[in-house]
């Protein structure tokens, strides 16, 4: 089982979700994040004092999948999120040692879906 963590542009969330649904990945968890990367920030100012904004709004997606699902999930995220511009985001894949469904105590691959 793998944990896929993806950082994407907030405005791409809907299209990523649609691509994931197409691959029958229906489960995920989403949080707000601020990202710092190659993407240039922008300048804001407040009452004449400049503010350098280099933490940009990102959406962080966490998806736990069984190993045979990893590639199609990654491909779906890329399809949904890619624009080819800097700031498109990153995907990190980590190993999950165990998964438990709280409702009924299921463990392992069966608990993922």
């Amino acid at each position, binding site marked *: 089982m793998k944990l896929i963590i993806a950082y994407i542009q*907030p*405005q*791409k*969330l*809907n299209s990523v979700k649609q691509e994931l649904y197409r691959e029958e990945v229906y489960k995920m968890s989403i949080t*707000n994040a601020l990202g710092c990367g190659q993407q240039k920030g*922008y*300048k*804001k*100012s*407040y009452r004449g004092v400049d503010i350098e904004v280099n933490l940009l*709004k990102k*959406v962080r997606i966490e998806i736990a999948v069984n190993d045979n699902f990893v590639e199609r999930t990654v491909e779906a995220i890329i399809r949904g999120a890619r624009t080819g511009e800097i700031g498109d985001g990153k995907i990190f894949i980590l190993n999950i040692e165990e998964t438990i469904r709280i409702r009924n105590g299921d463990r392992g691959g069966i608990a993922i879906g």
Partner: protein
Amino acid sequence: MNPEITLLTNSITMIWLVLTAALVFFMQAGFAMVEIGLTRAKSASNIIMKNLMDFAVGAIIYWAVGWAIMYGGLKEFFLMPDIPGKGALFQSWMFQVVFAATAATIVSGAMAERTKFTAYLVYSLFISGLIYPVSGHWIWGDGWLSRLGFHDFAGSTVVHSVGGWAALTGAMILGARKGKYVKVGQEVAVKAIPGHNMPLAALGVFILWFGWYGFNAGSTLDGTSSYIALVAVNTTLAGAAGAIGAMITSWFLFGKPDPSMSLNGALAGLVGITAGCLVASTTGAVIIGFIAGIIVVFSVRFIDHVLHIDDPVGAVSVHGICGVWGTLAVGLFATGRREGVTDIRGLFYGGGWHQLIVQFIGVAVVFFWVVATTVVLYMGLKWVTGLRVSEEDELLGLDISEHNAESYYGFQIFQNQ
């Protein structure tokens, strides 16, 4: 008359008009809060700027030229000359400028979240300096429509419809906010872009209602009129009935009573009674308001789902459509019993079709005037400065792209459109 009596009579009218003008001024805050509440957090500061500046720019231009066109004649540009004893002139200007500003600010809501700020500034100049004063002159400035017998007591047409139609052409020419209407195959899917702050929207509606007592009751233009209280009562009842009408309609159509529609309904009732608040009976006011509340829900739905025009706050429906309804209602509900002020009588009170036809003419004339001039204005702006911000700027939000500003610093806001 005894000069002391004259002085007191004038004094009562002066404090009455200055206080009611202040109430109408305060409606600017109401419009700003409603518009902020019903749009997204990323545009709030831009909305503040628009609402502040349409008043500021509008007041200056109305002082410079607008007033002279509407009421004053050529020698009163800039309210010149500054001679003493012009209390009556200043009191009229004060009361009128806040009406001009109301017409101007109505448009802001319909064009929210995508209009270039510079274009909006230029728009403000033209609506307060030219478009509003000309049609206002026809109706209130002793112009041809007033002589025809057209009756619009406090401005369902003069103020609200003018704003509403300018909002309509503006929203059409601008096009919808990105993501509002999504083409899916042949079909257009209508998406919701929910407002981010209902408490502020509600506060705005309460402020508007509060200010409306100045708007309608002040329009007696005479602090010793014995109809002041009747006007206030009709205003109260129509606003109340409008809220109820919209609540019931939304309940029926959507399954639950909808807050933002009910708020719109109160405003719809108030717009509806604005023309007829003097001539209608209290029963008339309740009916006019209630129907306005029903109309506004259907109108919002029609404009959104059928016409696919993106009007985030419902300005076209509330001010344009219900302004028409209110103006026509005069031709239906005028009781004919306002001795000493007016003797117009509507269809339902045995007055026949005459007044209704006159009202209709006024409505139509103003519609064409405003649509024609604003189309020219917006198309001109599109050509000269551009009317709409770029797609990236819209995505980023107008607060940042137009003002380098953030409205809710520190608050975590989740936005994926």
